Every structure is written in structure tokens, then in C-alpha cells.
């Protein structure tokens, strides 16, 4: 089977487990983002694929070849490091040629490959400079150039954009997207920036607490989070998740909020856990501010964040549950106001006692 | 290559140094300990004598005198050297051209070898042919017999040594002064601290580590004082300037009493070790060396 397969990867550092048996299949030419908080194991997994760490158990298979027993340089992977890790004493040309020289590629061929890669990345005029004479964005390109010149079967990117300022990050993100169209290889990118993951990746792998929480395309991660961790972690501002009780209903579940408000969702009753206690999740765009008494329930405004085109209103229900709502940019809500909240039950998610997510039937 | 093989690779990098280190330093260290328990001379004939060599040392007035001389000369050198070096560093810690030149002047003697230093000072201190002698005579006085009067010979060694060694501690203090953050002085100025207060409350406390380093390094170095004594006075007159290392040298390479000399070497080693370990403890260097990574 072509592509990358990870089979039951386990890793512990000095007795502390960081990866608890991870399995993952990556298709050829697929762009995968590893997303998760720090310490969730995503970087360790990337480094195991690269060969910079050894797994305690499990197999790494790339294009039908088991690579976890090979030294990093023989695995057919290339990596772009967080701080670029360009060799400071070498020119850009030498940086890009270093790996090819070690692989004993003939000199003439090296020159051709380096020139081609430099042209693709538009860094030809930088070839004789040293890293210290370049800007952060230029170094980033060289680091990518050093990776693609080796024509690897898999690119590994470790937080590639985290060292760039906001404007440059957006531009480089676009460039990365274009670049992947041109290379015939898969990409795995580690990031903790969800916007980066959402815009670039074909599929996102969400990590937490030593395990993969969900593997899915970006929109599915957003609209159908596998569990409450994913629901909270993806999306900004975070999804409101508050305790609720299942009420009697028909084919679709209805719940009672802590203050007694009844909400009809479109989550099928089938498959829901039997007991009554669940959590309900609402994205801010599914909760609108309206006049007092005119919405699903009333709440007191705690904080108003004006973002320009819209405002975020952080409010508290009578029972103390915090809930985030959206309003127009011109909102008149002020701290301490009592307002009505119109909750779109159809957009709500339910989470069982173990955190498992339940969503409306797929369209 | 398996990961187990890779794990041992690091040892290959340290092996060349380590093998020489073990052969030329650690083995002799242990061998010296062993030798000190034997009576050995040039013609072999090792007889185990236990601690007899140490007992003999304890009773040997020549060894005792050499230890006292060593401590005395160290005591004359280290405090004065430290204060002078600190004063020079304070005066020369500025970016002017003249300060740079003077720093060079005060460090210049430190790059000379002990033989050149003693050669120079022999012809300053010697009453008949020395610079000081000439000056004294010019002033119509009797030249002081620095190298032949028992009560003047140790101060003469100390003077020579201070002239020779003032450069390194001065540079250490200068480096220490450079480490003091400028904003501490600005804060002190805002608090209307006088120059004098600033010196006592900001500068001096910030130099604590450097001062310990200087004092301990110099103490360890001066306890091993040898060349000055051997070359200027050959330990004389009548042992008044014989230092511990000179005693060791004479016993080992003059009389070839190898076991006895080894015992003296061990005593010296213990003293130096105590000083060095004190320095490590006070400056936390062992910890600094051990953490890392």
C-alpha cells in the first residue's frame, strides 16, 4: 500500500508515556496537519517518523517499506524545522547541496537540482548568501528549498510558520499551499495554530493526552467534533459547552439547560447514552443576542468583545452557566445588561458522559 | 546500524581524550597514592611501610618549614593581589583609549614565563647588580639584601609574584564588572545613592562570585609556587624560602626518595583539592557542570 502507515506507535520518556499506541494512514500526496496542545505527543510522533526519536513499539511504513529501522537520512523523508536549522556557515547553495552530497549524488546533478529548486522558490538571487544575511521569510524559503531538493516521498514540517510575524505568516501559508501542488509527495505538518491547519490540510489529526482524538477533513472537525476536547480545541472563540439533561422527545433529542430552558436539537435520539446527564455544545454563531424576554432564554452580559464586523457577547445564565453569543458589530449590549439569547437548537451538539460527540444527521 | 550501536558512538568521540587522560593523569594519581605507602628509591626495592612516610613527614622540620613558607607567601600574595587587581579593574573599566593601553600594560607581565620573570627580578633585587640596589646606593644607603636575608626573602618572592600575576585577576574583575547590568546603576542613581554607596551596595556585591573565583584560583596557584623559589633563591637562605613544591622536587629528583616524595605530593594534593572544592562549592561550578542538557 503506497503512502504512510503508522502502526501502534508507543513511546515513553523516562517512564512517562507520551504516545499510547497510535495508528494512522496517510494517503500518497495527502497534506496532513497534526494539531494539538503542547505535550500532546504530536511533535514526538513527527520525530519518530523522521527518525529523530525511536519508538518503543510499533512500525512506520512508507510506500511499502518499513522505515523505522533506518537512519533518518535513508528514510526518504525531508524535514523543515521550526527554527529552520540552516547551517550558519554555509551559503544557501551549500545548505541545499549538503544532503545530496551526503547521498553521493554527482556534482553536476547537484548543481542542476539546486538551481531548479531555487527557481521554483524564487530564491535564485540568494544562493550565495549565508543565513545570517537573510530575513526570516527568506530563511523559511531556503529551509523549504533544502527539503524539496532531495525529492523526498514525504515532507515533515515542524511548526513551520511559528517564527514569522503575522503578515508574513499569512503570505507564507499561501505559498505553502501553492508549493504542495507542485511537489509529488505527502506532507505532515505539526502545528498548534488551527487556522493554519484548517486552511492547509486535507485532513487534520487532533492530538490530546497521548492519543489521536480525531482524524477528519477540516470542516468535519469543525462541524462534527468527535468529542468535547476537539469541540473546545477547534474554533475560535471556543464552543460553549454546558451541562444539560436529556428531556423526553421524539426522533431528535431535546434537552433542558441548567436554568430549565428547553432546547430541541436535531441530534438523533438513536445511539445517545441512556442516562439523562449530557453536555450541550453551541458555537457562538448559533447563539444570537436579542431583546430581553424575546429569545430562548435570558442572560446577563459579562463582557463584550467588539471585533468590527461582529461582536462577541460573553453572558451568564441564571444558574451561572457561561455562554458565548454573537451579535452585530454595532451591538448595544453593555456589561451588566440583561439580554435575551436566541439559541439555534438545530446547530447544537451533544456530548455524552465520556465526552463522545453526537451531531445532527449528516446532510 | 542499530540504535544500540548509535548509543555507543558518543564514546568514540570522547575515547581519545579519555584514554590519554586515564593513562597520564588518573593512573599516576592512583599510582602516587600507592607509592606513598612504600619505601622506594631509584634502584627499586619497594618495601611496604604503611603510613610511615606520612609519619616521617609530620616529624620532618624541613617539610614543616616548607609548608609554613608556602602558607606565608600565599598569605602575602593573595589578599594584596586581589585588592590591587580589583582597584585596577575599577579604575580601568572605561572605554577610553588610555584605559585600554593601561589594561595592556598591567596584563603584559602575565604572558611571560616564570624563568623570564625571575631573570628580570633577580637583577632588580640582587643587592650588587640590581635596579633596587642601584637606586638605594644612589640615595646613599646600604642596599637591602632581598635574596639573602631570611626575613626579606619571602616578601621578595611575593613582590615578584604580584608583579607577574596581577593581569589575570584584573581581567577577571573587568569581565565581572561588565556583567553588572547597567540598569542597576540607573536604579541606584534614581535612589540618589552616592558614588560610595553605589560602590558598596551595587558594585561590590555583584562581584562576589568573581572575587571568590579570584581568591580561590590564586590561592590554589600560589600554594603550588615553585619557579620563583627555585630560580631566585634555590630555597635559601637555609630553607627560608623553600616552598612545599620545591621540597617535593628536591626529594624526588634530587634525592630520589620516591615513596617519601609521593607522600608529600599527596599532602599537597589534598590541600589544593580542599581549596578547589571550596571554590566549586562557593561558586556552584560543579552544579553548572552537571546540569546542562
Amino acid at each position: 500500500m503506497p503512502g504512510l502507515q503508522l502502526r501502534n506507535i508507543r513511546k515513553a520518556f523516562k517512564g512517562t508515556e507520551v504516545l499510547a499506541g497510535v495508528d494512522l494512514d496517510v494517503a500518497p500526496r495527502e497534506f496532513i496537519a497534526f494539531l494539538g496542545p503542547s505535550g500532546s505527543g504530536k511533535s514526538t510522533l513527527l520525530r519518530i517518523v523522521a527518525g529523530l526519536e525511536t519508538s518503543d513499539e510499533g512500525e512506520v511504513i512508507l510506500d511499502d517499506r518499513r522505515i523505522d529501522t533506518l537512519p533518518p537520512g535513508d528514510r526518504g523523508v525531508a524535514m523543515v524545522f521550526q527554527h529552520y536549522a540552516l547551517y550558519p556557515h554555509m551559503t544557501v547553495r551549500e545548505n541545499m547541496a549538503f544532503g545530496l552530497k551526503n547521498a553521493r549524488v554527482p556534482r553536476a546533478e547537484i548543481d542542476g537540482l539546486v538551481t531548479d529548486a531555487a527557481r521554483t522558490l524564487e530564491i535564485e538571487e540568494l544562493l550565495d548568501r549565508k543565513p545570517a544575511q537573510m530575513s526570516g521569510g527568506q530563511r523559511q524559503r531556503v529551509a523549504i528549498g533544502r527539503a524539496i531538493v532531495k525529492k523526498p516521498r514525504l515532507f515533515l514540517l515542524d511548526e513551520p510558520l511559528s517564527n514569522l510575524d503575522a503578515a508574513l505568516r499569512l503570505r507564507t501559508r499561501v505559498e505553502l499551499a501553492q508549493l504542495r501542488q507542485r511537489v509529488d509527495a505527502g506532507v505532515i505538518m505539526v502545528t498548534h495554530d488551527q487556522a493554519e491547519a484548517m486552511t492547509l490540510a486535507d485532513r487534520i489529526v487532533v492530538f490530546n493526552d497521548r492519543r489521536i482524538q480525531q482524524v477528519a477533513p477540516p470542516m468535519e472537525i469543525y462541524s462534527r467534533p468527535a468529542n468535547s476536547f476537539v469541540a473546545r480545541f477547534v474554533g475560535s472563540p471556543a464552543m460553549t459547552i454546558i451541562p444539560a439533561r436529556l428531556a423526553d422527545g421524539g426522533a431528535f433529542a431535546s434537552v433542558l439547560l441548567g436554568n430549565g430552558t428547553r432546547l430541541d436539537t436535531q441530534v438523533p435520539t438513536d445511539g445517545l447514552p441512556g442516562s439523562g446527564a449530557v453536555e450541550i455544545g453551541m458555537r457562538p454563531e448559533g447563539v444570537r443576542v436579542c431583546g430581553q424576554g424575546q429569545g430562548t432564554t435570558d442572560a446577563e452580559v459579562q463582557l463584550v468583545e467588539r471585533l468590527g464586523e461582529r461582536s462577541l457577547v460573553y453572558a451568564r445564565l441564571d444558574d451561572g452557566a457561561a455562554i458565548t453569543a454573537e451579535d452585530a458589530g454595532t451591538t448595544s449590549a453593555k456589561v451588566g445588561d440583561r439580554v435575551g439569547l436566541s439559541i439555534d437548537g438545530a446547530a447544537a451538539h451533544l456530548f455524552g458522559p465520556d465526552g463522545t460527540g453526537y451531531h445532527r444527521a449528516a446532510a | 546500524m542499530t540504535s544500540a550501536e548509535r548509543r555507543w558512538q558518543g564514546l568514540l568521540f570522547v575515547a581519545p581524550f579519555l584514554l590519554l587522560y586515564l593513562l597520564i593523569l588518573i593512573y599516576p594519581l592512583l599510582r602516587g597514592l600507592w607509592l606513598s605507602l612504600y619505601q622506594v628509591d631509584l634502584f627499586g626495592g619497594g618495601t611496604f611501610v604503611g603510613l610511615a612516610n606520612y609519619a616521617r613527614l609530620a616529624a620532618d622540620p624541613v617539610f614543616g618549614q616548607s609548608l609554613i613558607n608556602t602558607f606565608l607567601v600565599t598569605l602575602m600574595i593573595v589578599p594584596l593581589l586581589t585588592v590591587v587587581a580589583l582597584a585596577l579593574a575599577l579604575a580601568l573599566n572605561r572605554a577610553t583609549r588610555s584605559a585600554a593601553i593601561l589594561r595592556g600594560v598591567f596584563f603584559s607581565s602575565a604572558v611571560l614565563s616564570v624563568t623570564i620573570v625571575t631573570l628580570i627580578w633577580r637583577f632588580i633585587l640582587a643587592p650588587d647588580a640590581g635596579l633596587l640596589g642601584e637606586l638605594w646606593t644612589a640615595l646613599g644607603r646600604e642596599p637591602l639584601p632581598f635574596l639573602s636575608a631570611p626575613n626579606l626573602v619571602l616578601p621578595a618572592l611575593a613582590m615578584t609574584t604580584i608583579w607577574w600575576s596581577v593581569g589575570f585577576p584584573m581581567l577577571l574583575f573587568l569581565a565581572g564588572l561588565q556583567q553588572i547590568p547597567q540598569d542597576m546603576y540607573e536604579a541606584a542613581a534614581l535612589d540618589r545613592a552616592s558614588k560610595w554607596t553605589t560602590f558598596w551596595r551595587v558594585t561590590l556585591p555583584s562581584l562576589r562570585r568573581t572575587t571568590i573565583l579570584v581568591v580561590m584560583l590564586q590561592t590554589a596557584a600560589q600554594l603550588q609556587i615553585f619557579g620563583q623559589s627555585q630560580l631566585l633563591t634555590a630555597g635559601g637562605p637555609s630553607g627560608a624560602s623553600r616552598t612545599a613544591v620545591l621540597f617535593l622536587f628536591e626529594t624526588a629528583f634530587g634525592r630520589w626518595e620516591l615513596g617519601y616524595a609521593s607522600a608529600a605530593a599527596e599532602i599537597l594534593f589534598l590541600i589544593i583539592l580542599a581549596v578547589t572544592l571550596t571554590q566549586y562549592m562557593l561558586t556552584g561550578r560543579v552544579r553548572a557542570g552537571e546540569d546542562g542538557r
Partner: protein
Amino acid sequence: MAASRSDDRLPPLVWAALLTAAALMVAPLVWTLLLSLKSNAELVGNSGAALGGPYTLENYGAIFGNSSTMRWLLNSAIVSLGTTAGVLVLASLAGYGFARLDFPFRRSLFVLVLLGLAIPSQAVILPQHQLFATLGLHNSYPGLILPGLIGPFGVFFMTQYMRAIPKELDEAAMLDGASRFTIFWRVILPLTIPAQSTLAVFTFLGSWNDYWWPLISATRSDMYTLTVGLAASQMNYAQTSGLGFLMAQAVFASIPIFIVYIIFQKQIVRAMAGAALK
């Protein structure tokens, strides 16, 4: 060197004290230089003659005609350069191993090396002397060089320096298919050139000025280094050609070291700053 308070002027009294101290510092050197420029005959019984002319270079001429002094210069050069090269190689290799690789007993071995900083050379001189006698290395260049290679300071210094280089560079090189030695040689070593030059200057100065080991190991005068040769000259002062010649030897022997000092002043100061930080 940036001064902390360059704006305020030194009080005149401090200036006077400084200049006096500087004069005391320089006087012996000037005195030596003057003595070396006088004919030996004039100095007999009257070294004060050095304070006035006539001055001559005849003593320096005599040095170049004196085969033993030139031989000692050659010995010193071979021993110092050999020691410096050896220390750089050994300390760099060991520093790389200790700083950037993990291997069994790494920590204990490093502590063992650190402990060496506390072992004075005098404490081990006898067994060292025996060892080199057994190996037949006395009165040879290897015999003079080898003990200079085991100083733990170089290893400690290179280890500290190499620790500060980002680990990502080794990893990038591993992914570039470089072997451990290639990483050391092509990636890490070129980045340590500042540390190498500092260590080189210190090792060279130390080796050139070393008196203790060559005094014991080199017993034949054709294997003396300049340091030991000068000691022999001054002890046999009565038999030598005279005071002026002796002083000319001293000046001659210090010329190489002053040249090194002047060229590498920056490294020396930087190393001091490092030592003060440790």
C-alpha cells in the same frame, strides 16, 4: 570593551596612583631591555651603567650565533604548536561527545574529567616521570607534548561552547544523511572556530611558558625548551657570557609570546569574560 561609566573622569589623585603603578609595572621591563642593550664588559660590577649609553645590539647578534638558544627556540615552537594542535583535536572531539551525544556513563565520565581540574600537576609528577621513563619518552618531543594534552580545561571549555549550539542543526544534518563524523566535521566544528582560537591562544601561551614538566622530562640540553634553557642560563650565570647577553636572551624569548599576546588580545579578554561567567 564597553565601559559602564565612561563619561565621568578619573580624579587626578587616582590618575597619579594609576600612572605610578604603571611605571612600577613597566620599570622592570625597561630595565631588562636596557641591560640587554649594553656590552657585557661594561656591566661587570656596575649594572647601573645600563642607565646611560652607549647601547649596542651585540648581545642579540650573539644569540643568533648561539646555536643552543636557537635550538631551544625550535624546541619550544615544536612543543607548543604540537600541544596546541593536539589539544584542539582532542578537546573538540570530546566536547562534541559530551555536549551533543548520549552514551552510557556520559555524566559520570564528564564528572571524572571535571575532577581533573582539581588535580595539580605536582601531585602526579613522580608517577608521570616513571611512566614516561618506562615508555622511553623522556628527552623526546612526544614526551614533552603528551602531558600537555590531558588538561581537562579544554574539554570543559569546548563542551560548554558546543552545548550552546542548537540541537536542530544535528537533526537537520541527520535527515540530510550525514554520518556522526560528518556532522561533527562539516556542521558543528566550523561553528566553534571562535572557541577554537581562544583555546588555541591559551594552550599555546601555557605550553610555551611551561617550566615544570620540561624541567623534569628534558634533561639533555639539546631537548630544552626556551623556558628551561633560560633557567639553566641564569643558574650558570657565572659561566655565561654576561649579564647583557642573559637579558638579551630573556627579551628574545619573550618576543614570540608578546606577538601572540598582541595579535590575540581579544580572545584572551573574551575567554576571561567566559571564565567569570562560569
